[in-house]
C-alpha cells in the first residue's frame, strides 16, 4: 500500500496513461492569448466561451460568503470597495482584469477577488 493511514489509500497505479476511466473527466481546450493586443482585449474569446462557467464559480463563492456573513455585507464590500484596489495593481494585469469583468458581466470586485484569491485565501 502507498499509505497506511488515513483511509482511502491505494496501490501505486500503473497503466493509467493515456487518460481514461473514472479519474479522467476530459481533455483541456487550447486558447491563444495574443500579447500584441491591448491587455483589455486579450481574454475576450476565452471569456466569451466560458462566461457561464465563470459566473457559476463566482456564485458558489458568493453563496459561501453569504453563509458566513448572512447580511450580505461581505459581498457588498467586495463589490463596492475591492475595485478601488484595481488601480494599484501593475499593468497589464489590471487592464486584463477589467476586460474580463466587462466581457463576462461579473462585477469587477468579484473578478478581482478571484485573481487575488491566493493571498486572500491564506486568511
Amino acid at each position, binding site marked *: 500500500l502507498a499509505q497506511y493511514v488515513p483511509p482511502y489509500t491505494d496501490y501505486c497505479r500503473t497503466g493509467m496513461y493515456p487518460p481514461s476511466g473514472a479519474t479522467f473527466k476530459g481533455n*483541456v481546450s487550447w486558447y491563444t492569448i495574443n500579447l500584441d493586443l491591448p491587455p483589455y482585449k486579450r481574454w475576450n474569446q476565452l471569456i466569451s466561451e466560458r462566461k457561464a462557467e465563470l459566473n457559476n464559480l463566482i456564485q458558489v463563492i458568493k453563496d459561501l460568503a453569504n453563509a458566513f456573513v448572512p447580511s450580505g455585507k461581505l459581498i457588498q464590500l467586495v463589490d463596492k470597495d475591492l475595485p478601488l484596489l484595481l488601480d494599484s495593481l501593475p499593468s497589464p494585469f489590471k487592464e486584463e482584469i477589467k476586460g474580463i469583468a466587462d466581457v463576462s458581466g461579473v462585477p469587477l470586485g468579484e473578478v478581482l477577488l478571484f485573481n487575488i484569491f491566493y*493571498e486572500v485565501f491564506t486568511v
Partner: protein
Amino acid sequence: CTSLVAEDSTGKLYHARNLDFGLFLGWDIKNKSWAVTEQLRPLVANVDFQKNNKTVFKATSFAGYVGMLTGIKPGMFTLTMNERFSLDGGYIGLLEWILGRRDGVWMSFLTRSVLENATSYDDAKNQLSKTKMLAPAYFILGGNKSGQGCIITRSRLSSVDIWEIDLKKGRWYVLETNYDRWKDPLFLDDRRTPAMKCMNETTQAKISLETIYDVLSTKPVLNKLTTYTTLMDVSEGKLEAYIRDCPDPCMPW
C-alpha cells in the same frame, strides 16, 4: 497540490503537477465533493501566449484568472507553484498593500511575469528566489539541462530553502506537496510519502510522462481537491493537461 520535476537516465527533464484547490470551501454532502473545486474544473484552459505569432510560453490556467500557476517556456524551463501555509501569510502582505506599502509582488503575477520575461532557467530561479512577495509559496522549477530542477521554498521576503536535483547523491527527482521538506507533513495529509514511494518504485530508468501520470493518479496524490493534472516536457515544448475526478473511495484532500 503535488508537483515534481524528474530527470530520466538520458538527462531529459519532465515536470508535472496535480492542482488541488478548494479545501473547506463548501462540502457537498450529497455528491461528496467540494463546491469550489467542482466549479473550477469547467474553467480549466490551456493557454498559448504569443507575440508576433510565436509562442512565448504555454500554461494551464483557469478562465478569468490572469496569473499563472503552471507553465512552460519551451526549450528553456517549466514552472509550477504550490501553496505554502505560514503564519506570516498572504493576508499580512494584502493588508500592507491596502495600507500603501506596495514593494511586494502578487504571487500569480510573479509566476506569469517570470514565464513571460525570464531568459533562462537561472534567470527564472533568481527572480523566483529573490523577488519580495505578498505571500509565501513553493516554486517548483525545471530546466532543460541535466541537474536543472529545484524547489524554492519562499517566505514573503526571501528564499528559505532551495532543494535541487543532485544525481551524484541519487536524487533524480524533487517533489513538493504543501509542506516544508525538512518537516513531516500533517499525518492526515501525507501525499508526499505515497508520491515518493511510487516515484521510487517507478525508478529513473522508467520515468516518463506516462509513468508520472500513474504516480499522480495514485490516491491520495489524486484526491477530491484535484482539478487538473498537467504534464510537461521542456525539451519538446510539450504541455498536456487533463481534468481529473476522484470517485469514492477517495480522500477529501
